[in-house]
């Protein structure tokens, strides 16, 4: 199915500077830094680079190999849906149904596995359920012209409610297959790393390629920056948005079926709250809720930061009542330094002699 025009349009838009590749610089380090600071997520990356050693001064266990691997193993379950959220945000939308899709897709996989379907089929069915919900989101938004926020908020409730009606509140269990432990990341495959880490890496590389090297990425950004302008230049914004929501649903579902393996039971509340964590991770990674801007590497840094904070809270044994305040505060701080870094880079670029 070709969802968008393949005409080579809008190769460089107004908001595209942020993903442009750094040209080989003659001015050396200063210019490289400026260009780096303008990238989405650069600020939070710097924050992380400073935060980790500082915090590990108080808790040396933070930087131990096992803990770093543990952080990566945990991070992927936020990171993969954040990839989808980033796509949606770049194309000018928001997807609040992510957490519910994670729950439902895990439930579909678990229930099918429970009645004896082979693992690959059960996983595919779970992922397909997520894609279908993404498709529905896209249709409601583009055809029925329901605002993204409202449409996906409603879908969040409907899908979660369906899961509760389906299960009567009782978790799916007794479906585990030996291979599912591997897929869920309960067994280590390379050193102390688990399979979901490699799934995430593959997705990151594929999606980065798509976003940077094909027109699809440009279409996402064009639609998110200015849907009307995009339409005038030959892009079909509705199809682009539909694609974005299908991608988000699918990526959330991939997370959901892996999480069902990790948790070994699917509680009907599984994935609740993930929508807000993924939005936080995407925004920390430099995605602009106004659309048109965002990056997958930024999403990686955002998801990593959230996981590192949680890890640090656990390891430093910070009193639990402070947890929400600390996480909220750091999200705000991270977004502010990201914006500051971007502003700095713009000022620097403007003052540069031509």
């Amino acid at each position, binding site marked *: 199915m070709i969802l968008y025009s393949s005409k080579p349009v809008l190769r460089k838009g107004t908001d595209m500077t942020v993903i442009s590749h750094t040209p080989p610089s003659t001015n050396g380090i200063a210019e490289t830094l400026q260009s780096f600071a303008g990238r989405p997520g650069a600020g939070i990356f710097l924050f992380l680079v400073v935060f980790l050693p500082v915090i590990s001064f108080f*808790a040396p*266990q933070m930087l*131990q190999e*096992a*803990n770093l691997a*543990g952080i990566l193993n*945990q991070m992927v379950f936020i990171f993969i849906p954040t990839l989808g959220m980033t796509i949606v945000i770049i194309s000018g939308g928001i997807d609040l149904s992510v957490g519910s899709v994670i729950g439902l897709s895990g439930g579909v996989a678990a229930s099918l596995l429970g009645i004896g379907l082979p693992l690959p089929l059960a996983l595919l069915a779970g992922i397909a359920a997520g894609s279908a919900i993404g498709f529905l989101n896209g249709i409601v938004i583009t055809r029925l012209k329901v605002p993204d926020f409202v449409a996906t908020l409603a879908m969040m*409730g409907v899908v*979660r*409610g369906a899961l*509760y009606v389906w299960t*009567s*509140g*009782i*978790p799916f*269990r*007794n479906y585990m297959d030996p291979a599912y432990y591997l897929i869920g*990341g*309960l*067994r*280590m495959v390379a050193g102390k790393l688990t399979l979901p880490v490699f799934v995430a890496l593959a997705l990151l590389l594929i999606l980065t390629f798509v976003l940077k090297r094909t027109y699809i990425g440009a279409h996402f950004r064009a639609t998110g920056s200015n849907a009307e302008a995009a339409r005038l230049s030959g892009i079909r914004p509705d199809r682009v948005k539909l694609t974005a929501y299908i991608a988000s649903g699918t990526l959330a579902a991939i997370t959901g079926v892996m*999480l069902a393996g*990790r*948790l*070994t*039971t699917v*509680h*009907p*509340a*599984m994935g*609740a709250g993930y929508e807000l964590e993924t939005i936080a991770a995407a925004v920390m990674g430099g995605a602009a809720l106004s659309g048109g801007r965002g990056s997958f590497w930024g999403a990686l840094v955002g998801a990593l930061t959230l996981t590192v904070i*949680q*890890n640090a*809270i*656990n*390891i430093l*044994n910070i*009193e*639990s*009542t402070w*947890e929400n305040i600390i996480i909220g505060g750091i999200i705000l701080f991270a977004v502010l330094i990201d914006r500051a870094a971007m502003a700095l880079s713009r000022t620097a670029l403007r003052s540069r002699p031509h």
Partner: protein
Amino acid sequence: MADREETMDKGGISRRQIFGTAFAGAATAAGTAMLGSLGSAAMPGRAFAQDAASGGASTSIAWGDEAWRKVVADKVAGRTLKIGFTGPAASEFYDEIEHGAFAQMHAYSDLFGVKWDWTYASPQEHQDINDQVNTIEAWVTNKFDAVLVCTAGDFESMQNVYARAETAGTRVFQFNMPAELWDENQNRAISNIGYNNVMQAGYLAGRYIAKQLGGKGKMILIWGLPGHWSTARRKGLDIALAEFPDLKIVGEQRGDYVRDKALNAAMNLLQRDPDINAIYGENEEMALGASQAIQALGLKAWDGKEGIITIGADGLKSGFESIQQGQMTATVSVGAVDQGRQSIEAIFWNLIFGQVPPKVFNVRTQVVDKTNVDEPLAYVNWALSVPKI
């Protein structure tokens, strides 16, 4: 060591007296008789004593006789009792309580010809108090005879809700609430059917860990959302640990009652401190998450001598099965099925005859591990097999 065992047992007996087991004993006898009646698909009006005898009593001293049964049945006169049941969230735990209630309702229908109009509701969002209050008020407006409530709502503000229900003629019963935290006389619910979270949950878990580890070791806590259950269980744990200065809490983190978060928290804490001896998850989902973390990190689960103990609290079928499989070490079974059954008992006698149940009625609880999991698992399996109302 022998000395310590002895003092611990003495402590246990003296504390147990707090719970007032006299009523529980009578209720258990009643329950046993009814188990028999339920299994025999009895019809209203059949010979009662004979049925009790088939339940195994050879001395023919059964719970009531036909004359008494008839008096009750005449008073019931085929009446339908309209009951609303609401917990803080839909879950396996509340499903077990509900099935306990179903069992007792079927039993009373068989014996006395009473009919039940049963409505279940739980808030969509975990512990959404507003949603729950709206549900209760809708039930009161619809002239329910009684509502059974378990809520994360604040004690004071719930009293106002209960007062309005009372005025409108709906009787309020609470279940699974840590009634020990509040002044009994301020509590407007007619009865609180539950268990003592301090002494019958937190304290028991702490004592079990101490006993297994010989009173010495390092433990971490994975705790639920801040609220009255977590406060009460922690209080009980602290009482238990006060007796064992060498058993130390080296970490306490939040798992928000979900497996996902508990699994990550347990992994992070074990990463920091791989030589910890025990993890206490405030509910079973979190304890199960902790036992998975132990497995995933290649650490050893407790085998009776060494490894890491994981203990939770609830008494779910899934938890018992995990104990059988040697994953989770133990759990505090807080009598979900009995809470459901006793709630119906309190409601029935109160609505039909105006009999006043105890303000606080605590069911039996127990630390369940591999050595004694069979009975509680069989009991839960029975309750879950009872058809819905």
